[in-house]
């Protein structure tokens, strides 16, 4: 497939990294200094120029391209590039990165002629609330309109004897409608056969229904009470998107914003949130407002260093669960070192969302778990597939696992005796290098 990528920043280079192996890429950026390293590292052609102009798009070969990924940091050039591309080549599919939620809404209402709009803010909000909805989860992805979840857990080092942990999987009491997709122990993945067991310190990836995911989280985390009070530091666009999302789920949200006018604006926009005009690092304020009593805090200020400081202070004051929104990839490690529970990178999330679309046209969602080692495919089974009518227990085990089937709109979590039918949507958990193979087989 021939793909044109506009923007070689953090999102762009992550996209290139994920796609350069299988596809022919052309990368456009205004800043030539970003293109050099990219073309040395990966086999891609580059053009220095404005991707939102016809001449540059034509030079990039938009007429022969199958896909345009417009992921520069500015919304309007991205949209203009996509619209120009659609005019120059009606067959090209266009995906656009946009920070403004309005554009996403316009696209949902089919008022923007592009194939996909990805908003970093909304992706981040989903990621944060998923993480909070299942407190111990490192990462959760939702498939088939929320009927299927993939949840990633860290089993604590200190986890003791347990109905699930430390027992062979065939004996363990695994919640109904769920499957262990993979166990990651150190640097290697363990294929979860019946004689394997989950050990303390493992990272477990589970596919299952939302209810099963909830059960898993209580198995892993013990029974934490439901989240009811969250503090969001920073009322920027990401902070607001996160707060909005949590409020919609009925969670009490307090927001801390240091800019007076911004605080007022957000307070007007979110009547249900309590907005404070404060820096968030004033101990008197934290004490007076009992910030330490809230169950979770999200650090969505513009500056990683500030988030780092505020998160540490919040932990000192007793906040149980901290989530940091990071802007520089390197910060993830800093945050982990500092004891922040989850670090969310909006650009990484955006890149994942964009890459999903670049895979097989039938693939509706592709999650990238554990960096690039695993992928989750959402594929519709073709009638001519040789696996049709095969019982699940007879399917070849090739490092991939069918976690769920969506048949006539309903999710089924298959057992050994179930068979695969043409037209089934299957959610497959697979090693990244086998993704193409799996797609072909189905």
């Amino acid at each position: 497939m021939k793909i044109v990528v506009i923007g070689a920043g953090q999102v762009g280079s992550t996209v290139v990294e994920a796609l350069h192996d299988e596809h022919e890429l052309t990368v456009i950026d205004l800043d030539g200094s970003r293109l050099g390293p990219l073309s040395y590292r990966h086999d891609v052609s580059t053009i220095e120029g404005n991707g939102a102009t016809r001449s540059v798009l034509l030079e990039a070969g938009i007429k022969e391209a199958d896909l345009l990924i417009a992921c520069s940091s500015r919304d309007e050039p991205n949209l203009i590039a996509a619209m120009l591309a659609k005019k120059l080549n009606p067959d090209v599919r266009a995906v656009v990165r946009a920070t403004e939620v309005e554009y996403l809404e316009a696209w949902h209402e089919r008022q923007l002629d592009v194939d996909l709009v990805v908003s970093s803010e909304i992706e981040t909000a989903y990621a944060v609330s998923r993480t909070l909805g299942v407190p111990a989860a490192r990462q959760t992805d939702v498939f088939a309109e929320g009927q299927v979840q993939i949840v990633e857990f860290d089993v604590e080092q200190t986890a003791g004897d347990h109905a699930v942990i430390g027992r062979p999987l065939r004996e363990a009491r695994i919640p109904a409608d769920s499957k262990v997709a993979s166990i990651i122990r150190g640097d290697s993945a363990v294929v979860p056969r019946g004689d394997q067991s989950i050990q303390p310190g493992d990272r477990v990836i589970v596919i299952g229904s939302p209810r099963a995911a909830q059960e898993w989280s209580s198995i892993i985390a013990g029974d934490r009470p439901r989240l009811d009070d969250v503090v969001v530091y920073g009322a920027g666009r990401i902070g607001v998107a996160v707060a909005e999302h949590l409020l919609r789920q009925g969670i009490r949200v307090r927001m801390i914003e240091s800019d007076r006018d911004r605080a007022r604006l957000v307070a007007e926009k979110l009547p249900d949130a309590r907005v404070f005009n404060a820096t968030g690092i004033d101990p008197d304020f934290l004490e007076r407002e009992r910030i330490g009593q809230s169950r979770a805090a999200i650090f969505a200020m513009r500056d990683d260093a500030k988030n780092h400081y505020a998160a540490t202070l919040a932990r000192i004051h007793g906040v149980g669960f901290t989530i940091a929104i990071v802007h520089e990839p390197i910060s993830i490690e800093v945050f982990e070192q500092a004891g922040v529970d989850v670090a969310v990178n909006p650009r990484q999330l955006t890149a994942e969302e964009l890459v999903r679309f670049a895979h097989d046209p039938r693939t509706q969602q592709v999650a990238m778990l554990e960096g690039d080692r695993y992928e989750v495919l959402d594929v519709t089974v073709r009638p001519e597939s040789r696996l049709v009518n095969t019982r699940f227990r007879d399917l070849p085990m090739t490092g991939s696992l069918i976690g769920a089937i969506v048949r006539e709109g309903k999710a089924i979590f298959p057992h050994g005796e179930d068979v695969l039918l043409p037209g089934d949507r299957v959610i497959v958990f697979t090693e990244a290098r086998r993704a193409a193979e799996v797609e072909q087989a189905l």
Partner: protein
Amino acid sequence: MISRARLRRAVRRETIGVDVGAALNLVGALVKYLSLAFLFPAAIALGYGESPWPFVAAGAITAASGLALELATRGKETVRAREGFLVVALTWACAAGFGALPYLLAGESQLANPANAFFESMSGFTTTGSSVLTDIEALPRGVLMWRQFTQWLGGMGIIVLALAVLPRLRVGGRQLFESEVPGPEVGQLAASIRETARRLWIVYIALTGTLAALLFGYAVAGVDDRMSLYDAVAHAFTTMPTGGFSPQAESLGAFGGATQWTVIVFMLVAGTNFALLYALFARGRGRALLRDEELRVYLGLVVLVSSVIVAELVAEGILEGEAAARHGLFQAVSILTTTGYASVDFNEWTALAAVAIVGLMFLGGSAGSTAGSIKVVRHLLIGKSLRRELDLAVHPEVVAPLRFSARPVDEKTLRAVVAFVLLYVGLFAAGALALTIDAAIENRAVSPFEAIAAAATTLGNVGPAFGFAGPFGSFEPFSNFSKAVMIVLMWLGRLEIVPVLVLFTRRYWRT
């Protein structure tokens, strides 16, 4: 060397920032058009075989004065925002002044005192409804209809009317409009002020017509045998502007239950935001009505206060059954909407009822209605703001915008509301004090409660007070000075204080 005094004078002349000539020119034009209003009572007088000359002469004097003012300031036709306050304040003073001419010219002994005539006229245009008349029914039909008609003109506003019909006010009308239309935030019905003004007047005329037709229908159908075409029109003219004048000595007490119930409904409507009424009638949007926070609180207050009064009436054995409900509700609605009609002499009710009624004088109807006084929306915002102050005392960093009907209220509006209420209460206190002191100096029998009620009722454009100035009484016993005080209070109250009061600040006149 220039002397210091000369320098100061030179500076002062240069720093006058208000184009008085332009303002007077517009006032002159408005006064000129106002003269047309005298044609209506003249026609009524003719119809009843009375002399039309007081109205014709008053019309001629008014037209000539307006024209003279306009000619004297020729070449200064552009009014800008700054002059708006001056134009509005002066226009209302002039309207009341020229509107008093027929009273003086009619040769009626009750209104021969210029202070009385001016009081009656100001009470008319400001839709107050307080009267210095002691024997209303002795006046000719034409003069009585003029009283009613001044309230109808003043209710929706003479300037709003001018905005709707005079092409000259196409520009710069917003300042005038906002100075005259009551309420902290003016709901605009259309893209242009001119169209908004026109729609407001259409709603107003339609409602007045409906009420007149209904009341006349009662007369024709024999539901109310004391009702006549004259009374139907006269009361429609003073119900919709929440005025309160009546050509009957016993006000609405002269009519039957059906008429009183109907008037209760129309008083309630007159106290509702006309923007909501327009949305309901023209676009069929009833839901906007229910969602409006002010309307809900307004109706809630009516229910609450009238049940208190009804309960008191029944408990004290003053009235019972339907009569208690009707009269209790009638008085509550009449005072709350600042109409000022009476269906019985509530002067004779208990002290609790009297205090409740004086309290109601400070509520007022909704913003954007024809009602006067402080208005429900301001009370609501003050309440919310006080609640926020308590919140801030505990959580000093919290940012909590006030909301009204789910929409955020900006701090500027809130500040204006707080200032308005403080000014209102201050002026009320000053007015009550002035009336009390004057009564003491003039040695007149005015009790403190009567002075308080008189100040509250004139500032709130309500109408009746207590004691001798009660619903079936008269303001005549007050001294001329006291009448002047109340004339100013009515003027301030109708224009919601600020447009008048800024004229007395140096900052207004300076560049």
